C-alpha cells in the first residue's frame, strides 16, 4: 500500500478499507469497526494509522492493562507512579530517582546493533524528560545457547546444520547487541553499571534486550509530560522527522517474521552524539520558568507523545504538520505522525516565552519549532497543507482504547511437569559425569569428586561464568559515581554531595518462570531484593519489563496472568510498589515462545555510600555464615536443568517464604549498619558452592565450609556414593539465603541476634587457604584449587563467544 497514492483528507468508507490496509496499520477488523463507531463517521487514512498505532499492544497495553491494575503502585516513597515517562521514588535528603525499563527485543532481533542502541537512546530520553539527570544504565539480556555443540547434543538434535547456524547467529546477536549498547551508552556518557546476560533455548530466535535507565532529580524540579493552557505553544525539538521506524509500535506488537531481516525498515538508527546535545539542552530548560511539560517521542512518535500530553492535562492539541522539521521530501501526514525517528522531544511552554526556549536550544545547535498549539477542545487535530487530515478525541486513543480480558488456559506442558525427586538429579548427574566429558582439554576435571566436577561445570556455565568480557566493553565508571566492586549482587551509584547512594538490580529466573510462572515471578522479586540487601540497600520500588509470547494464545496469557499474581504478592510483602515499566508481547516465532520473562528492576537506598557491603572475602580466619531459609529443593536450579536437560522439566519450584525474607532484610540491614558484616553474597544461580566460589574469586582467599548445617535429618554416611542431600546442600537455589562473612569476635553476637530475630543461621566454616573446600557431615564433597576454579569461571564466556 502506498500512502502517497491516497488523498489524506478523504474519509474512507468501510468498503474502501481493505483487509490489507488494516493489516498494514495493525488493526483487527473488529477494532476498526469499533473505532469507526466511536468516531461516528468514516476515517481518513491518517486516522486509521493513528488508531492502529495507539491501539497497538505496545502503546495501549490492551491485553495486559486489566491485569496490571492488580499490581501495587502506591507507597509513601512513590513520587510518580505508572503512566508517566518514568516512575519516581523519593530517596530522602532532597533527592529523588527517576527510573524506567523498556524492551527493544524486536528491533534487536532484526538489527542487533541499532536495535539495542536505539533502545538505550529511548530509555535515556524517558528519564531526562522528567527533568532527571541520567546517571546509570542496566541491561538485562537473554539469548539462545552459544556453547559449542556437545556430543550429547549432536546425538539429540535432529537438524544439526540448522542448530549450528542458529548458534552462530546468536553469537552475532550477542556481539551486535553488546556493541550497540556500548556505542550509545559510552558515547552519551551514562555508565552501564550492570544487568544480566543469560542463555536459554527459548530465546534462540527471540532475544530479549531490555534497557533500564536511572536518573536523579530534585523532588521540587520534576517535569511531567503534560500540556495545559489553551493557546500555549507546542514545541518540537531535536532531530528532523524521516521515514525511519514507521509503525515501529505496530511492529513490536506482532510475532516476528521467520526471516527477521524482512522487517529491517521498521528499525530506527540512533545518534548518541545528537542525543547528548538534546540531553544537556533539555536539562537546562527543565529549570526554566515557563516550561509546562516535556515528553519524549518514543513509540508512535508524534502521535503518542502529543495525545498523551494533552490527555494528561485534559486539553487538546492542534498541530500543523507543515511546520514539522523534515528530513525527507514529500513526507505524508501519515508518515510524519507515525515516524519513529530518534532523538526528538515535545514541549509545551507558556505563550510569550517560546523565544526564550528556542534561544536556549540554539546554544546546543538544536532547532526548536512551534508545531502546534494547546486547545480547550480535548481532541487531537492534525492539519497538513492547510486542511485537517485527522481529528480524534483524545480519550478514544488513550483511556478508551481497547482493553481485553483474553482467555487463559493452563498450558499442556505445565500438567506434564513431574515432581522432581532429588534422586532423579543424582542419577542424571551421575550419568552426565560419565557420558559427557567436560571440555576436558580446556578445563580441568575432577573425576573423583562428583560435586567438584559439577561445580566446575557450573562455573563454566554461560549463565554463571564471569561476564567481564561483556562488562568491560561498557563504560561503567563515567560520571565517577559507580562504587566498586562492579560485579557485586547489585550496582551501587553514589549521589554526589549526599551521604546516601542508590542500588539497583535486575533479575528474572526465567527457567523457574517457565516451570511455574506465579512462583517464578515471586522468585524474580525475591532475588532482586536479596541482591539489594546483600550490598546494604533497603529495597524501595520496582520497574518491570514483562516479556512474553503471543497474548492471543491462551497458554501464554495464562503465564502472564500467573506472573502478575506472583509478582503482586511478593511486591506487597516487601512494600516495593511498581512505578512503571513495559509489557513486551509477541516474543514468539512460529509458535515458539520465549520463557515467561518478567524482569524486575528494583531500586534501593544505602544510607551511607561508604558502607557499601562487598561480596568479596576480606580476611583469612573470618567465619562464613549461612543465613535464611531452610528450603533446599533442587527444582528449577541451574544444576537440575543442566543435568536433566529437557527430559523431565525440572520440577516444581518451591514458593518462597516472603515473611522470612522480610525478617532477613531487617536483620541483615541492621547488622550491616552496625558494621558487623564483612561481606555478603546472595545465594542465587548455581547455589551455595558457586556463591562461595564467587566470594573467593579475586581475593586470593579460599574457604573451608561444612554445608550440612541448615539441613534437617542429615544422616552420617561414608563411602564415595553421591547422595541427594549433597547436591541439595551445595546446588539448591531455592529459598532466600545469603552467605555472610563475620569476624570471629562477632560470630557469637551475630548468631544470637539472628536467633532473637527468628532467623536461621549456621556458622558453616571459615575464610582462608587456597582451596574451595566443602564437606558434608565431615565427608569431603569438593576440594578444588582456587586458582583453577577461578580460571574456569573467568574465561568461559570469552571462550564461547570468541573461539567458537
Amino acid at each position, binding site marked *: 500500500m502506498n500512502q502517497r497514492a491516497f488523498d489524506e483528507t478523504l474519509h474512507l468508507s468501510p468498503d474502501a478499507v481493505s483487509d490489507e490496509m488494516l493489516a498494514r496499520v495493525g488493526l483487527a477488523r473488529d477494532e476498526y469497526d469499533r473505532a469507526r463507531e466511536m468516531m461516528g463517521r468514516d476515517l481518513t487514512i491518517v486516522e486509521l494509522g493513528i488508531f492502529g498505532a495507539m491501539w497497538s499492544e505496545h502503546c495501549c497495553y490492551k491485553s495486559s492493562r486489566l491485569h496490571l491494575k492488580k499490581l501495587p503502585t502506591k507507597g509513601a516513597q512513590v513520587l510518580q507512579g505508572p503512566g508517566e515517562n518514568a516512575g519516581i521514588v523519593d530517596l530522602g535528603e532532597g533527592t529523588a530517582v527517576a527510573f524506567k525499563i523498556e524492551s527493544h527485543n524486536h528491533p534487536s532481533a532484526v538489527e542487533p546493533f541499532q536495535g539495542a542502541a536505539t533502545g538505550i537512546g529511548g530509555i535515556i530520553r524517558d528519564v531526562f524528560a522528567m527533568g532527571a539527570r541520567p546517571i546509570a544504565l542496566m541491561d538485562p539480556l537473554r539469548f539462545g545457547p552459544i556453547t559449542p555443540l556437545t556430543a550429547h547434543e549432536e546425538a539429540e538434535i535432529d537438524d544439526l546444520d540448522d542448530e549450528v547456524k542458529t548458534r552462530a547467529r546468536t553469537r552475532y546477536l550477542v556481539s551486535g547487541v553488546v556493541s550497540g549498547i556500548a556505542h550509545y551508552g559510552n558515547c552519551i556518557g551514562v555508565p552501564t553499571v550492570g544487568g544480566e546476560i543469560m542463555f536459554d533455548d527459548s530465546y534462540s530466535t527471540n532475544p530479549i534486550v531490555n534497557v533500564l535507565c536511572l536518573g536523579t532529580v530534585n523532588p521540587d524540579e520534576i517535569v511531567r509530560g503534560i500540556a495545559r493552557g489553551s493557546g500555549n505553544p507546542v514545541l518540537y525539538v531535536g532531530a528532523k522527522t524521516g521515514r525511519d521506524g514507521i509503525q515501529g509500535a505496530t511492529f513490536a506488537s506482532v510475532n516476528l517474521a521467520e526471516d527477521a531481516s524482512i522487517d529491517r525498515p521498521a528499525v530506527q538508527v540512533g545518534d548518541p552524539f545528537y542525543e547528548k546535545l538534546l540531553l544537556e539542552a533539555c536539562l537546562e530548560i527543565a529549570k526554566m520558568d515557563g516550561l509546562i511539560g516535556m515528553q519524549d517521542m518514543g513509540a508512535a512518535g508524534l502521535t503518542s507523545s502529543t495525545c498523551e500530553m494533552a490527555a494528561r492535562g485534559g486539553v487538546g492539541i492542534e498541530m500543523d504538520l507543515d511546520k514539522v522539521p523534515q528530513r525527507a521530501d514529500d513526507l505524508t501526514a501519515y508518515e510524519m505522525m507515525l515516524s519513529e525517528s530518534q532523538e526528538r522531544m515535545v514541549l509545551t511552554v507558556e505563550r510569550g516565552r517560546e523565544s526564550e526556549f528556542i534561544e536556549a536550544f540554539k546554544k546546543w545547535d538544536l532547532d526548536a519549532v512551534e508545531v502546534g498549539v494547546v486547545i480547550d477542545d480535548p481532541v487531537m487535530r492534525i492539519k497538513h497543507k492547510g486542511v485537517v487530515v485527522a481529528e480524534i478525541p483524545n480519550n478514544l486513543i488513550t483511556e478508551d482504547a481497547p482493553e481485553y480480558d483474553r482467555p487463559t488456559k493452563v498450558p499442556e506442558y505445565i500438567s506434564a511437569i513431574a515432581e522432581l525427586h532429588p534422586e532423579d538429579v543424582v542419577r542424571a548427574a551421575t550419568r552426565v559425569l560419565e557420558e559427557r566429558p567436560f571440555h576436558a582439554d580446556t578445563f580441568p576435571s575432577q573425576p573423583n569428586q562428583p560435586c567438584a566436577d559439577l561445580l566446575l561445570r557450573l562455573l563454566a556455565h554461560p549463565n554463571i561464568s564471569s561476564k567481564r568480557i561483556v562488562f568491560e566493553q561498557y563504560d561503567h565508571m563515567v560520571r*565517577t559515581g559507580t562504587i566498586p566492586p562492579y560485579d557485586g549482587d547489585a550496582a551501587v551509584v553514589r549521589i554526589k554531595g549526599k551521604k546516601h547512594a542508590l542500588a539497583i538490580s535486575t533479575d528474572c529466573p526465567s527457567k523457574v518462570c517457565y516451570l511455574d510462572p506465579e512462583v517464578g515471578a515471586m522468585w524474580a522479586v525475591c532475588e532482586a531484593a536479596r541482591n539489594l540487601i546483600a550490598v546494604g540497600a533497603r529495597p524501595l520500588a520496582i520497574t518491570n519489563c514483562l516479556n512474553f509470547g503471543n497474548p492471543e494464545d491462551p497458554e501464554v496469557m495464562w503465564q502472564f496472568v500467573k506472573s502478575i499474581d506472583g509478582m503482586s504478592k511478593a511486591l506487597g510483602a516487601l512494600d516495593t510498589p511498581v512505578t512503571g515499566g513495559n509489557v513486551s508481547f509477541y516474543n514468539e516465532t512460529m509458535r515458539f515462545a520465549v520463557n515467561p520473562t518478567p524482569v524486575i528492576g528494583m531500586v534501593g537506598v544505602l544510607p551511607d555510600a561508604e558502607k557499601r557491603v562487598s561480596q568479596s572475602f576480606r580476611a583469612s580466619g573470618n567465619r562464613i555464615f549461612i543465613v535464611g531459609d531452610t528450603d533446599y529443593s533442587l527444582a528449577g536450579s541451574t544444576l537440575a536443568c543442566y543435568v536433566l536437560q529437557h527430559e523431565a522439566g525440572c520440577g516444581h519450584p518451591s514458593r518462597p517464604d516472603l515473611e522470612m525474607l522480610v525478617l532477613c532484610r531487617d536483620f541483615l540491614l541492621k547488622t550491616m549498619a552496625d558494621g558487623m558484616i564483612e561481606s555478603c553474597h546472595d545465594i542465587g544461580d548455581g547455589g551455595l558452592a558457586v556463591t562461595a566460589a564467587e566470594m573467593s574469586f579475586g581475593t586470593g582467599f579460599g574457604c573451608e565450609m561444612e554445608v550440612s548445617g541448615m539441613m534437617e535429618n542429615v544422616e552420617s554416611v561414608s563411602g564415595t556414593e553421591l547422595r541427594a542431600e549433597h547436591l541439595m546442600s551445595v546446588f539448591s537455589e531455592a529459598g532466600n539465603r545469603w552467605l555472610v562473612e563475620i569476624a570471629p569476635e562477632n560470630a557469637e553476637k551475630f548468631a544470637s541476634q539472628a536467633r532473637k530475630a527468628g532467623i536461621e543461621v549456621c556458622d558453616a566454616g571459615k575464610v582462608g587457604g587456597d582451596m574451595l573446600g566443602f564437606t558434608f557431615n565431615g565427608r569431603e564433597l569438593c576440594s578444588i584449587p582456587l586458582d583453577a576454579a577461578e580460571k574456569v569461571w573467568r574465561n568461559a564466556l570469552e571462550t564461547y563467544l570468541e573461539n567458537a
Partner: protein
Amino acid sequence: MKFGVVVFPGSNCDHDAYYAVRRVIGEDARFVWHTERDLESYDVIILPGGFSYGDYLRAGAIARFSPILESVIAHAKKGKPVIGICNGFQVLCECGLLPGALIRNRSLKFSCKWVNLRYEATGSIFTERYYVNEIVSMPIAHGEGNYFADNETLAMLEDTGRIVWRYCAPDGTSEWSSSDAEIPAYNPNGSLNNIAGIRNEFGNVLGMMPHPERACESVTGGMDGLRIFESVING
C-alpha cells in the same frame, strides 16, 4: 589557581574533571564552551574525555578545528599547562601539540577497566608529585587508545624522556619487544612501547589515555589520579 574544562559537544568526562578539581581539591574551575576563544584568565586547561563532535570521522579529528583549539594551542605555546585526558589526548595528537596518533584498540573493542601504570619520566608539570618507577592504578575507558607513532618519533620520545606513563604488570614489569607480535596482557590496547601517556618537550602539555579524574576518591576505587591535579597546583 583557575582551571578551564573545555566542553565540546559530546564531551562526557567534563563534569568528572570539574568535580575532581572543584569539589575534591577545592580549586577554582569553570566550564569553557567550545565556541569561546578567550582563555586569558585560566591557568590550566583540561581537555576532557568523551566523544567530541561524536568522534565522527576519527576521534578528536573534528575538535581540532573548533574555535577554542586555537586558543588552547596559544595557551600551550606560552608554556601554560594543558592536559588532555582520553579524548583530550586524541585531540592533542590531532592538533599537533603532541606527536603520534591513537588508533583503534587491538581487540577492536571498547575497554573499560582499572589498569596499572608505571611512572617513567619526570619533567611534566602534572606529575611532580609522583616518584620515578612508582606504580599506580587508574581506569581506562576507550575504544581508540592504541598509541602509534613512527620509529623515529618513538625513539625521540624514549631518548628525550617524554614517555610519562607506561602500562605495566602489578609488579611494575613493562616489557616491549618490537619484533614480538605478542602484546603483553597488561597492555590493554596494543599501544607501542606500552605507552599510556606522553608529554611535550617543555613539560607543560600532557596527554594520557587513563583517567586521573576517575581516581581521586577512595569511595570510587582509588586516589592515584589526584596528584596529577595537585602537582600542577603546586608546581
